[in-house]
């Protein structure tokens, strides 16, 4: 039924053109109506599509003459559709911009957010500084023997130095709960050959009544370096580097003589109080200085005890209390707060998960 002559085609053309006019693409009420019109004329079997298809059945000469006419009709129809579509979409957008608002002030749907314990974060912060300085991470058992906790560290039997290490002993076993992470120094040396550079973080136990600043369970980070020619000045250099990394560049330190049986010379290390301008506050006991580390040069008996020659090898060791640092850094006033696990306490420590 396709027109096969020029006259028939032109008739059909006039019909389609009139139909297009009366369909009024430019005035379609909404997008579905517009699409319906488009399909009516330009769909696979649309009227305009059919008209253009019919061209191919005409002789070449006529095709050449009529083709542009048909295409022009198509183009103008397409332009009308596109322009009306744009109009309708704009109108629709305007309506939805006006009407489709939601209450954005409703609270967020928060997935549960966990936290690492502040002691984990502090311990790791301390130990990782040394780790980055080339210290291997080392650990040891919590249940220890007398040798690793005392005698190998040059605490002679029946010596008052042991009084500072109030110890939990185990019932019916020649064992105790380690009172310091210095035990790991010995274990690390026993397990290797010099040189050695280890950082030994972990939990320790003291037979002490629990109060605002004491706990029967607490944490230390111990460090040990043994190398040829390592001396007290290297200890000072390493600890200064560490304390500046922990507390900030320019942190002032002070080394005072002290006594720990496993190091000689022994020292206690103070930092200039970072909570007050040096004038004195409760944290520094009004001295302007905060005691933060114990340290010293490895005692020759400790080296001899693990079979290392103190004439060839020397080193230094140090220890720091994790709870004390966490309390200073975070303003925690009662040490017991760390072990109650009150979520209101724990949730405050919004550190990034390291």
């Amino acid at each position, binding site marked *: 039924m396709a027109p096969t002559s020029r006259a028939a085609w032109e008739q059909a053309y006039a019909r389609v053109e009139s139909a297009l006019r009366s369909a009024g693409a430019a005035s379609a009420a909404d997008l579905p109506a517009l699409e319906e019109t488009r399909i009516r004329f330009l769909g696979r079997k649309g009227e305009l599509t059919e008209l253009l298809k019919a061209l191919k059945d005409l002789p070449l000469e006529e095709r050449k003459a009529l083709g542009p006419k048909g295409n022009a009709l198509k183009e103008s129809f397409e332009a009308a559709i596109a322009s009306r579509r744009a109009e309708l979409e704009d109108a629709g957008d305007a309506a939805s911009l006006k009407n489709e608002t939601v209450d954005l002030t*409703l*609270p967020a*749907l928060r*997935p549960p957010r*966990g*936290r*690492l314990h502040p002691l984990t974060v502090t311990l790791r912060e301390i130990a990782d500084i040394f780790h*980055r*300085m*080339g210290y*291997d*991470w080392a650990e040891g058992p*919590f249940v220890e023997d007398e040798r690793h906790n005392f005698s190998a560290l040059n605490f002679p039997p029946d*010596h*008052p130095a042991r*009084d*500072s290490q109030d110890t*939990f*002993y*185990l*019932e*019916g*076993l020649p*064992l105790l709960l380690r009172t310091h992470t210095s035990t790991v120094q010995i274990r690390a040396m026993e397990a290797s050959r010099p*040189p050695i*550079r280890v950082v030994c973080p972990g*939990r320790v*136990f003291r*037979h002490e009544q629990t109060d605002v600043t004491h706990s*029967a*369970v607490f944490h230390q980070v111990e460090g040990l370096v043994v190398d040829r*020619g390592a*001396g*007290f*000045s*290297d200890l*000072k*250099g*390493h600890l200064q*580097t560490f304390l500046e990394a922990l507390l900030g560049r320019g942190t002032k330190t002070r*080394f*005072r*003589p002290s*006594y720990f*049986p496993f190091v*000689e*010379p022994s*020292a*206690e290390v103070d930092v200039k109080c970072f909570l007050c301008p040096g004038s004195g506050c409760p944290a520094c006991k009004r001295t302007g200085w905060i005691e933060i580390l114990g340290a010293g*040069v490895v*005692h*020759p008996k400790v080296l001899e005890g693990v079979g290392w020659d103190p004439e060839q090898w*020397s080193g230094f060791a140090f220890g720091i209390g994790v709870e004390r640092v966490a309390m200073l850094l975070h303003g925690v006033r009662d040490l017991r707060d760390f*072990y*109650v*696990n*009150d*979520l209101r306490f*724990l949730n405050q420590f919004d550190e990034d*998960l390291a």
Partner: protein
Amino acid sequence: MKISLNWLGEHLDHGLDAAALCVLLARLGFEVAGRERRGAAFRGVVVGKVLSRDKHPNADKLSVCVVDDGTARWNVVCGAPNVAAGQAVAFARLGAELPGGLKIGKAKLRGVESQGMICSREELGLAKDGEGIWVLDAATAPGRDVASLLGPADDVLDVEIAPNRPDALSHRGLARELAAALGKPLKPLPAAALAAASGAAFPVSVEDAAACPYYSARLIEGVKVGPSPAWLKSRLEAIGLKPINNVVDATNFVLHDVGQPLHAFDADKLAGNRIVVRRAKAGETLLALDHKIYPLAGCLTIADADKSVALAGVMGGEASAVGEKTARILLEGACFAPAEVRRSSQRTRLRSESSYRFERGVDPELAAAASARAAALILQIAGGKAAQACEAAAPGERRPPIQTSAARINAILGTSFSEAEIAGALRPLAAELKAAGGSLEFRAPSWRRDLANAWNLAEEAGRFLGYDRVPYRLAPLAPRAASLTPAECASRRIRARLAALGLCEAYNYDLLSEKALAAARLPSENLPRVANPISEDWAVLRPSLLPGLLRNAQHNLSRGAESVRLFELGKVYARKNGAVEELWRVAGLLLGPAMQARWQPGRAPDAEFADAKAVVEDLLSRAGALSWAGLDAPAAGKTASDPLFHPANSLRALAGATPLATLGWLHPRVARAHDLERAGVVVFDLDLEALAALTRPRVQARSLSPFPPVRRDLALVVREEVPYGDVERLILGAAGEILQAVELFDVYRGKGVEPGGKSFAVRLTFGRADRTLTDVEVGETVNSRVLPALIRSGARPRC
């Protein structure tokens, strides 16, 4: 140790004030823990007599008193409730200066002029002891300067002395350190000239010369026991000691002056006129000076002919104590082996100033001189005649000098001090020092038992030259890629995962009470126990982390928390073959809604088993395929936490044959014991050691299929008791390799499903990496392989 600066001045003119002295002591390694000012810090305060007290006309709480200050009468307004006529009080005259710079002038208080001030102890800077004015002895004469009632002004320091420095446990000992630091000479001790008038002997025999290398007994006859003179009382009171009588005070004075513990016996109470230093006999006891009876078994004692009269180096007996009627005393000056005294002190749990010094080591050459000094002092203040001391002395050991060099000391310190500097620092400390040609020979004095090697001398050189002169050095230690332990690697991974999954990390003690174990249904028989617990709460080493977390959950609920998600990573303990096995584990607890979104109904369900399962599966993802078993299944094995779990509603996750984790509800009895019955608690407990041991090769990326997957949904009705896991396993087994995933998306009971049954809706995802699957292939897999297998097992497809 308390140090009086006035007393210190008898040994050294240090020329420093208290503050400067504290700084110097700290630099030398003697921390000053406290500082106390004694005596008057005020001027113009005299004793006043309150003649009358009347109520203030314009104020209820004030009174108007007339005070006689010995020269005139004054009207004084006073606010203290305890002021009364007839009292002797501390009266600040007009013009007086009180601590803190307050000057007393005329003042009008509510219309009444006050001509001075009646002071409290606190206002005089003396003590904070409650409210009210300081009421003096009524007999004190008006007009007397109150400062004169207080004794001389003094500073008293509380100095911490490390256990290796017993030589510094006296005024002279500390003065010696300061003298070395300041380069000033010590003042000589007063000569202890004893005219040996009495020839009476008191033979001494020492049965264990190693335990008691020196003993001297000196008889002093004709003493008159009484109160000490004021100067001596004042010395002792300054350092917090209570004066007792002139003899005892003299020995205490010498102890704190030069550091030698001494003891005075009433010689008439000693049987047989002799002293034996020996081991206590079986069953022997001593009534000590503290009025308590101590069993002496095994201890070194001082005995007379019959019985022990003192625990050597620790304390004397009450029966032979010096009292008012004592006329003959026996003065002991001895040296006891440190370990010997420490053992005695520990066995008897008896400590004294004497044992404190002996167990640290008293200068073995001090006893003879100190005893003579005390005897001279006793003669001076208590009269009498002293005999020659009877001594028993083991041959003194002569310690070899320390041979080292300035270079060695510099190497230990990492310094470059000159030989002269080092020798200069060490010389004041040495009995003898030779420094020549690079080598250094140091002979330690008898009181420095702690100096034995080059390291000790390095510390001394460092102390006196100043630790601040040691440079900060970062020696060229080789850079290295430092390693972490496998346990630490696993811990970091797991902590990060658990925190990301919304759990907060908890820290609990490793010690538990029997009660906590029982509440968690955990047996305590095979657990390591502390022999000396602080309290019953911390008696047993924990076999599981869960009792701690249950306590934490209880605590948080009681504080108003509605949701608790906690985990802990820690060690658990068991006795094994005569040793203690400690293993890392990680445990967790979930309770209450995970999301906080009340405003959206149905979005915040309480935690259930499947939530804990998600956490555990996440942690175990690197273990590969898991299998699940009930806790009673033979493959499941046993763990220490098992009794705490609900026996039916709990599962064990296994990788191959290795049990890795347990998760489930609480046993109802455990829930009840922790007030958690209604809370719906899910817990898990995971073997961190096994997890740390799992190694996984690096992830190798696979190429992604460009062909779209094909999905088919099935609804299957099964009997209520058929677990979903069986259905899933059946589908996976029947479908062959084109089945890529099975996902459960609904469990339905009700209309359309017969009673006693339930319907699982599952979505099957099919695909191939090399081409698009056809509908026919998928339909054939479902219809002729999957469905028949399901039907054979009793399931019914529902349309």
